[in-house]
């Protein structure tokens, strides 16, 4: 049997043992504290600072976009964004987002964007944007509830506004949220609560416009509330961009193309400044900053009239008869014809296995009508009346390679140099091109078709305008520009760029006389658009978008008005004014508009009146 020891002695001994135990436990916390507070102190000091200091970027003011007369085309307006501190757990953020979505409307795209940002962000202590550009009612209901939304704060930001709405939308461009690929190339975009330029000037001059963000260090509490500002480095505003565009002219051009598809380009023939660059239909760039809905976006990109595409630089159209100027010039400098020689227009030429028709085929009026039925057509008349027969014969004589060389000298087949995204080059086909693409040799018939501006040949409205300007200023090379801030125009202003120098000015004046007659002589194709002030010269073009069968030709060609819209001809007109002392050149393209003389020339005429009077 266990003998119970002296109970007081036992107690003392046990108390001592217990004390030892306490000592062991105590030393564990003692050493733990020494470890935390003495050895790891520096590390924890950093963590404590990171906890309390929140780095915020100050969005720089974006530069304004101005027209040539200092009208503001794009500016900044205050906006309010709601953000959440980024250094929180996902579940905490989810909880807060849920609360917020009961106060303001957040659609799925918004919410996905928040979580995407959250999971991809590198710098964890930067706040995440929940919703930008709050409406007034959203702002006020959020403000009331802010107390129940830990780590949520509202920050003043900027929003882009385009006071002229649709006018010059393609030139100015639009802005929207940076997407993943943008962030990859420029990580700072994620931290800036700003959109980036998506098209037009907003995109091309993004860097100049954006400026540099500032930073501020805020002391924040555990709920993300700002306690005080600790340091601040101001942002650097972006530069204003002044354009060569005349917004009044642009607005007028826009009204002329209302309910039409097409383009108007107005260019200064002396320095290449673009005064108007209208593409129809257009769009309202304000839509994108007001956080466009999925439906609105789908409507824009699926619209068959492609309102987002800048047709002035991206639309590739057959130049039609406007190309005849190039063929004639090429013939003159290559001495294929003399200025006073004539070609007989036979209205129907059989060549190879097909027939080539002049537009005068089976018509009472036509290439011979004014000159006592001789059918002998000289260069001036050929331009004025747009005689196809003349150019079939002429292009055959000049040859495709010469035509191509001339066309390239006038800027066709290459980018105009406008600093805008989406510019197309068109197509100036030659023998080697055909060999490469079709593995076939070039046919003479194709030269003849190209000679009247059809076939493979395509050009953009801006190229046509530049080409016209070069004719207007007697071959002086110009570089189209839309940006008034950079003085790179006129660099080559004295360069006459044609490859041969003999008699060019007389060639130019011959061609310009033809263009004058086209508008100002009763036999000209655009005579119905003639005005006395300013006197302008030009060339119509009517581009078939369908094949006219032999049968139809026998029965009579169906007029445009009886055709469905998509089968109607494209109407083109290029011209310059004033005739004596050219200042501006214009190219007008109206898709499926009908004939160049009836549809495009009157538009050009109105532009000349507006721009020069």
């Amino acid at each position, binding site marked *: 049997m266990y003998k119970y020891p002296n*109970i*007081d002695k036992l107690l003392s001994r046990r*108390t001592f043992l217990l004390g030892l135990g306490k000592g062991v436990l105590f030393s564990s*916390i003692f050493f733990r504290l020494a470890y935390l*507070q003495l050895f790891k102190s520096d590390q924890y*000091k950093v963590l404590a600072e990171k906890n309390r200091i929140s780095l915020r970027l100050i969005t720089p003011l974006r530069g304004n976009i101005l027209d040539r007369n200092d009208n503001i085309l794009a500016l900044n307006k205050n906006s309010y964004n709601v953000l959440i501190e980024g250094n929180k*757990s996902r579940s905490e953020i989810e909880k807060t987002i849920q609360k917020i979505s009961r106060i303001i409307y957040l659609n799925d795209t918004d919410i996905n964007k928040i979580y995407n940002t959250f999971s991809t962000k590198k710098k964890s202590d930067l706040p995440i944007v929940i919703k930008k550009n709050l409406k007034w009612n959203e702002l006020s209901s959020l403000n009331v509830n802010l107390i129940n939304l830990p780590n949520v704060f509202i920050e003043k930001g900027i929003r882009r506004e385009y006071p002229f709405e649709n006018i010059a939308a393609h030139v100015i461009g639009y802005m929207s949220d940076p997407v993943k690929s943008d962030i990859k190339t420029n990580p700072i975009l994620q931290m800036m609560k700003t959109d980036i330029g998506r098209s037009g000037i907003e995109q091309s001059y993004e860097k100049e416009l954006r400026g540099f963000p500032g930073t501020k260090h805020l002391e924040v*509490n555990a709920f993300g509330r700002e306690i005080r500002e600790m340091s601040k480095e101001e942002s650097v505003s972006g530069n204003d961009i002044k354009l060569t565009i005349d917004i009044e002219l642009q607005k007028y051009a826009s009204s002329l193309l209302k309910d039409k598809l097409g383009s108007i380009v107005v260019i200064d023939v002396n320095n290449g400044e673009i005064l108007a660059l209208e593409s129809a239909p257009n769009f309202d760039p304000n839509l994108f900053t007001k956080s466009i809905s999925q439906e609105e976006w789908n409507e824009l990109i699926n619209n068959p009239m492609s309102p987002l595409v800048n047709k002035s630089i991206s639309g590739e159209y057959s130049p039609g008869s406007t190309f005849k100027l190039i063929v004639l010039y090429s013939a003159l400098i290559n001495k294929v014809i003399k200025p006073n020689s004539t070609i007989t227009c036979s209205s129907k030429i059989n060549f190879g296995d097909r027939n080539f028709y002049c537009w005068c085929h089976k018509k009472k009026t036509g290439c011979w009508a004014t000159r006592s039925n001789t059918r002998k057509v000289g260069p001036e008349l050929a331009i004025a009346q747009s005689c196809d027969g003349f150019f079939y014969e002429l292009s055959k004589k000049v040859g495709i390679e010469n035509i191509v060389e001339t066309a390239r000298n006038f800027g066709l087949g290459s980018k105009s140099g406008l600093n805008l995204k989406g510019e197309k080059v068109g197509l100036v086909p030659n023998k080697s091109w055909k060999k490469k693409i079709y593995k076939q040799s070039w046919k003479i018939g194709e030269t003849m078709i190209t000679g009247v501006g059809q076939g493979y040949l395509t050009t953009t409205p801006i190229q046509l305008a530049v080409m016209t300007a070069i004719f207007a200023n007697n071959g002086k090379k110009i570089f189209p520009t839309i940006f008034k801030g950079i003085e790179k125009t006129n660099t080559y202003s004295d360069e006459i760029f044609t490859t041969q120098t003999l008699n060019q000015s007389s060639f130019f004046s011959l061609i310009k006389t033809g263009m004058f007659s086209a508008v100002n002589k009763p036999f000209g194709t655009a005579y119905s658009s003639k005005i006395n002030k300013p006197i302008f010269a030009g060339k119509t073009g009517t581009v078939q978008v369908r094949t006219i069968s032999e049968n139809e030709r026998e029965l009579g060609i169906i007029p445009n008005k009886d055709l469905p819209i998509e089968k109607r001809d494209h109407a083109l007109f290029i011209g310059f004014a004033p005739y004596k002392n050219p200042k501006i050149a214009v190219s007008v393209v109206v898709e499926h508009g009908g004939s160049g003389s009836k549809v495009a020339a009157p538009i050009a005429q109105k532009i000349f009146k507006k721009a020069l009077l």
Partner: protein
Amino acid sequence: MNIINFLHRVNWFFIILLLLISSIGVALLYSIAGASWDPWASNHIIRILVSLVALITISLVNIEFWYKLANPLYLFGIFLICLTFLFGKEVSGAKRWIDLYIFSFQPAEIVKVFVILALAKYFHSIKLQSYDIKQRIFFPLLILFVPVILIFKQPDLGTAIIIFLTGIIVLFLSGVQMKTFFLSGIGGLVSLPIFWTVLEDYQKSRIINFLDQQSNTLGANYHITQSKIALGSGGFFGKGFLQGTQSHLNFIPEMETDFIFSVLGEEFGFLGILFLFFLYFILIFWVIKISLESKNYFSKIFGISFIASFFLVIFTNIGMVTGIIPVVGVPLPLCSYGGSAILSNFIGFGIILSGYNYRDFRLHNV
């Protein structure tokens, strides 16, 4: 009894020691409220003063009175806990509080004192008898397990564990054989999986998160991460009174109660902590000393057990805020904001002082 006699009989040294420790709590509560007496510091002072009156009153009553009252108090304690199940105020899923309209009271805290009292009385009453396993172990464990299980069911795991361990300490002091502790220690380890199954989900996740402190620092381990940052960033000298960023910017959760030690570490550094440890050490040492000097076994075993329990709570709290043991909600004695804990501790110390004042009094079995 005149006033001078009264003043003479009060243990001023001990009371000043208690007030010194408590005032550290007051200072920290004042600091975290943003240099304001409201809402914690002023209340804390009132509670300390009320508890002090209770302490002095208790200390002047003959220890025999408390000895006689031990069993009724124990039963009263059990009754209070039962009340929490019936009328308890539910706070985040646990019914630990009794709402007395003027103030709320957490019975588990005072039950800790009553359990020690009951066990001390029990061992005093059997001290002269031979070693009988039923008397030495089973009956005391019954006294212990009734309140522990009830409190565990509230649920209040932290206090249940503290009371359980305190009871084991009383058994240890009373002379239960060492081999019994070893055997039951092994048995306890074996039965850990069974214990695991009765835990609530949140309790399990606390333990899991404790074992994996590096992850989930913004979620379940947020408390402990922020607490460690506060302590670590305090360094040796601390950031200074009222200068703690972790506390003033609210990064430390529950800093007025369970995590007040982190605030101390942040503002007063390792040095401030050493000072608090020094005060605690004197307190504990002095209690053990006077307890051992007592002539009756009841006072001895109560004093040593109570102060061991007091130490255990300190260790649990600091162990928790420094991340060496899982998060169990126990306050830092005398410093944390919380009336029940303060009052219970002062009552316990009052009984210890009563034992000290009547140390020559010989208790007889009742």
